[in-house]
């Protein structure tokens, strides 16, 4: 395996994290020797992890300044953290984050350069949706991701934006790139 671009790299880090999580679950459930269902087995998981880590290390050596693993892990863990928020997570009446909305954003990880994603902070809103906040110090912008639509605003020369855009990954990427 070799990585031709950042996206291939980020997909592999995601695979690695997914396998790591599944191993943790197996371990917790003392299921090491019985995992013969449709999922990857415990031993196979370690082999797969080893292969992916080798590739990641190789890629990281070739791209020492990029630090893909750190950024990707940070975003992935943030989404994982947000997925576990209970109702009332704000101390009042906030709803848990909608699973469909989380999946939409997780799907973005394999389709957009991780550095472009990292320009945005990810927050839950109080209604179970997600909000992306532009980290720039030169302009303000935000994107609200809902179940089937998304909205954005940006303030540069004027305050402008668009609401109720039917959700598609391609449209979201387009907006994220044009605004940031």
């Amino acid at each position, binding site marked *: 395996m070799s990585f031709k671009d950042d996206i291939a790299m980020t997909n592999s880090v995601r695979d690695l994290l997914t396998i790591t999580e599944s191993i943790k679950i197996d371990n917790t459930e003392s299921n090491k020797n019985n995992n013969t269902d449709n999922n990857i087995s415990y031993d196979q998981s370690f082999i797969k992890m080893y292969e992916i880590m080798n590739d990641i290390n190789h890629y990281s050596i070739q791209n020492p300044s990029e630090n893909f693993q750190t950024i990707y892990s*940070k975003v992935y863990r*943030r989404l994982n*953290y*947000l997925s576990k*928020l*209970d*109702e*009332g*997570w*704000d*101390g*009042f*009446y*906030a709803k848990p984050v909608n699973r469909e909305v989380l999946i939409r954003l997780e799907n973005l990880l394999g389709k957009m350069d991780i550095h472009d994603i990292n320009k945005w*902070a*990810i*927050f*839950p*809103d*109080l209604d179970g949706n997600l*909000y992306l*906040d532009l*980290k720039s110090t030169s302009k*303000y912008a*935000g994107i*609200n991701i809902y179940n089937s639509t998304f909205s954005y*605003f940006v*303030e540069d*020369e*004027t*305050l*402008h*934006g668009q*609401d109720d855009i039917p959700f598609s990954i391609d449209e979201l990427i387009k907006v994220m790139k044009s605004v940031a």
Partner: protein
Amino acid sequence: MDGEIKDSETLVRSLYSPSFFDDDRLSPYAFTLIILNNSKREDGVSVLRKDLPEFEHDLKYLKTLKPRNPEDSYAGYASLVAKDVRNIHIKSPKHMEIDVIPKPSKKMKTHSEIILKIEGEKIIAGNTSREYRIFCAKLAYLAQWEKK
């Protein structure tokens, strides 16, 4: 104590969830107006006046409020200078007014509210206008904050 809030005063907002923090960013939703359990809609962002002598008492009271979820608790605070809040400028053709007004309660003498009016109408919880959303974003950007 009910008098006008001076531009130099520091305003403090208590936060009850670590989810409002992400690395070096504070969420605009830390300042969102909420719809209360009795369906009443907030129309001002609650803050405390740090420069008044009763501040520590009021903050202590807020920290001991029973959260809705037992695992939730005071998670940190955000502080803003009144002048910075009043000077927030939003590049919208709509007429906007921002102010901080004292609103002391029986239990919290330093309680006050940041209010936003668009075209003369006071904004209440549930508003989804761009002006309101960027107002919250600017509050978050201006705030100095500390995680517990």
